[in-house]
C-alpha cells in the first residue's frame, strides 16, 4: 500500500499539482468572494488531469502486473486523492486566515471563510469523493462521466447551501453573523464536516473496491 502511494506520488501525479494548492489557495485573498470555488478548482482541474494521465500511461495495467491486491490499489489511489484534497483545504484555510486579518471589515454576501465554512467544504468533498470513486471504479479507467457527475452534485450542494446561507437568516447568522465568532459552534461544524468527509470517503473506498473486483483488465 505504501509502495503504491509512493508510485502515484512519483509517477502518476505531476509535480504541478502539488504547487496548485498554493496558487489556487491565493484566490482566498479576494475579499467577499464565493469561496466554495477555491476547493472546487481541485475537482475541476486536478482530478480530470490526473486521471487522464493515469489512463494515457496505462497505469491500470502497469499496477495490475505488480504483486499488489486490488484492495490496496483502491486504497492507495483514494489516499493520494485525500492527501491532495487536504493539502488544498489546509492551504486555502491559511490563506483565509490571512484574508480575514488583512480585510477585517468586509461585508460578506457569501459565506465568510470561518471554520464552519470549511466544515461545509469537507462535506462538499465528501459528496464528491463518494460519487467519483464509486463511478470511476466501475471501469477503473473511464473518468469523464464520473468527474462530471461528481462535480455537478458537489456544485449543486455548494450552490444550494450558499443560497440557503443568503436567504435564511438563521443560517446566515450561523456562518456570517454572530455565530461566526462563536468558536465552539464553528469548531463543531468543522468537526462534523470532517467526520462526514471521513465516513463518506471510507464508504467510497469500500464501494469502489467491490466494483473494482468485477473489473476485467
Amino acid at each position, binding site marked *: 500500500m505504501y*509502495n503504491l502511494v*509512493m*508510485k502515484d506520488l*512519483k*509517477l502518476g501525479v505531476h509535480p504541478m499539482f502539488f504547487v496548485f494548492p498554493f496558487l489556487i489557495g491565493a484566490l482566498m485573498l479576494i475579499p467577499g468572494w464565493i469561496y466554495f470555488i477555491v476547493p472546487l478548482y481541485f475537482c475541476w482541474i486536478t482530478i480530470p488531469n490526473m486521471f487522464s494521465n493515469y489512463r494515457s*500511461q*496505462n*497505469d491500470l*495495467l*502497469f499496477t*495490475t*502486473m*505488480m*504483486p*499488489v*491486491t486490488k484492495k490496496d490499489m483502491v486504497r492507495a489511489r483514494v489516499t493520494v486523492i485525500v492527501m491532495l484534497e487536504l493539502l488544498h483545504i489546509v492551504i486555502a484555510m491559511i490563506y483565509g486566515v490571512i484574508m480575514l486579518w488583512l480585510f477585517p471589515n468586509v461585508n460578506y454576501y457569501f459565506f465568510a471563510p470561518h471554520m464552519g465554512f470549511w466544515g461545509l467544504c469537507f462535506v462538499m468533498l465528501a459528496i464528491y469523493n463518494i460519487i467519483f470513486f464509486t463511478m470511476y471504479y466501475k471501469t477503473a479507467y473511464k473518468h469523464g462521466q464520473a468527474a462530471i457527475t461528481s462535480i455537478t452534485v458537489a456544485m449543486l450542494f455548494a450552490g444550494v447551501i450558499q443560497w440557503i446561507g443568503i436567504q435564511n437568516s438563521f443560517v446566515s447568522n450561523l456562518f456570517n453573523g454572530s455565530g461566526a465568532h462563536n468558536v465552539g459552534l464553528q469548531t463543531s461544524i468543522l468537526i462534523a464536516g470532517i467526520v462526514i468527509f471521513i465516513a463518506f470517503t471510507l464508504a467510497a473506498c469500500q464501494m469502489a473496491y467491490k466494483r473494482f473486483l*468485477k473489473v*476485467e*483488465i
Partner: protein
Amino acid sequence: MLALDIRHLNKKYPTFELRDVSFQLEKGYIMGFIGANGAGKTTTIKSILNMLHLDSGEVHILGKNIAEHEIELKQEIGYAFGDIDFYTRSKMKKLTDVIKKFYTNWDDEIYYNYLRRFKLDENKKIVELSTGMKVKYSLALALSHGAKLLILDEPTSGLDPVARDDLLDIFQDLVVDGEISILFSTHITSDLEKCADFITFIENGQIIHSSEKDDFIASYRLLNGSESQLNQVKEQLISYKVNSFGFTGLVRSQDYDPSSGISATMPSLEEIMIYFAKKEDMYV
C-alpha cells in the same frame, strides 16, 4: 515440474469465446504461443495473470493456483508487452526505483549487470527507447526480481531482423540453467522456428495443438497435387488452395496416405497457421 499448467479455461464474450483452453509448459523451456490476430492469445495471457474473471478453468504457476496465490506468484512472474508502454515520459531510473520496491527479491547488482549487457542507459526516458530496448528493459526488470516464468506478449513484433535475432538469443541463454521458463506469444512464426522448444497453437479461441516443436510440425503434411487428385483427398484436408497448377493443402500426417502418389512436404509453422485460418473461413 510444470512452470505453467493451464486447465480447461472457458471465457465467453459477446463476440468471442475461449473454449476449453489447456496446455502445459515444463520448467526450463521456451513455449511459443501462436495464433492469428484475435485468436485469443492475449485473452489467454490475461487469464494466466488473473486479470479476467473466467467462466471456468484453472491456472497453476509453479505448482500453485494463481487465483489463490496471486500476490506470491506475481513475485515470480516477469512480463513484457511488446505493444504497450507505461509512463513513457519518465526516465528508466525513476521507473525502476518505483518498481523495485514492490519485489522482495530485487537485486540491484543483477539489474545493473543486465543494463550493461543489454546496453541500456538508465537515464533515458522510456519514450526514447527503441521497441527492442523496451523489451530488454522489461526483461532486465523481470530478471532482477528473480522471475522464474516470463510471459511475453508479442515481444518481437515491430522489431527489425537484427534486434529480433538478438532477443531470441537472449531468450535461449535465459533458459539454459533450467530455472527460467518462457511463454511467448507471437504471430511471427519464424521466431519460433529459431528458438521455441514447444508450440501451442490457438485459433478462434481454441487450442488446435500443443506439443514439442518438431512433433508439431511433423504432425502435418503439405500436399501438392493436380486438381483430379484434390477430389481424392478433399475430405481429409484441413483446408486447401487451388491454383493453375493444381492444389496445395494441409493434412494431418495420420490422414496422409503416401501410396496416393500426391507429393507431400513438411509445412512451416506459418503454413500451418495459414491453412487453419483458411479452414475457419471456409465454414463461415
